[in-house]
């Protein structure tokens, strides 16, 4: 059984879904939409308020590089 950990179901931990009997937990588009949230919020601040501080939270390029092996 697959359980989608999105929307209200994101409130449940892996342990809770394990107890319910799940064999796998998928994310659907939820993780992608978390990045869309980051884009949306940072871009809104930039274009509406001229505030670039949201970009200060970026994952360093060197950290991303390490995961591209």
């Amino acid at each position, binding site marked *: 059984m697959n359980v989608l950990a*999105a929307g209200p179901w994101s409130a449940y931990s*892996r342990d809770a879904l394990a107890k319910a009997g799940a*064999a*796998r*937990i*998928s*994310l659907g*588009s939820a993780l992608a939409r978390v990045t869309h949230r980051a884009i949306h919020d940072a871009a809104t601040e930039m274009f509406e308020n001229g505030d670039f501080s949201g970009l200060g939270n970026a994952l360093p390029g060197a950290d991303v590089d390490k*995961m591209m*092996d």
Partner: protein
Amino acid sequence: MTRDIGAEFRAIHRPGDPFILGNAWDAGTAKMLVALGAPAIATSSAAHAFTLGRKDGGTVSRDEALTHACDLVAAVNVPVSGDFENGYGDDPDTCAETVRLSFEAGLAGISIEDTNFEAGNSYDRELAIERIRTAASAARACPRDFVLVARADGIMEGNYDIDEAIARLEGYAEAGADCLYAPMPKTMGDLQRIVAIGKSR
């Protein structure tokens, strides 16, 4: 010995001890998720559609989805599963063809849902089950293992209730689906009813 990626994928499906399937949307996100611990990767039809500047739900062709899935297969060394909407056709034989093409593309499995995008509703239960039966038969005919996930999307889509979802999932199980999936049940009690259908699926 030829690697049986489908068998590797099947082996990590353990009821009560779930793995986290990392739905990625490009080679870089697939690599990130594997580096951070994902034992398997899947596409996401919605996330993929968004990368193409399109809306979710029947806007991506089978060729596009397969090409995208191949990009993820080439990027990582873990099983990759395709989130392949309704199998890219109404006809059960089209679902079977999608299974064969997915196996040939190096995927470890795919999911097929019961949403009829053109009609804006769910396939009738009988047709939905027949589509899974034909797809499962194609999966069993593959030279190596292949994990077919049968989805009942009508709760999430607002097309039917939990009782209809249960009836469909029972039909899918009997038709040979390897794993069952009804996105977004309304309560934990509903989820437990779903899980009870097939403890091993």
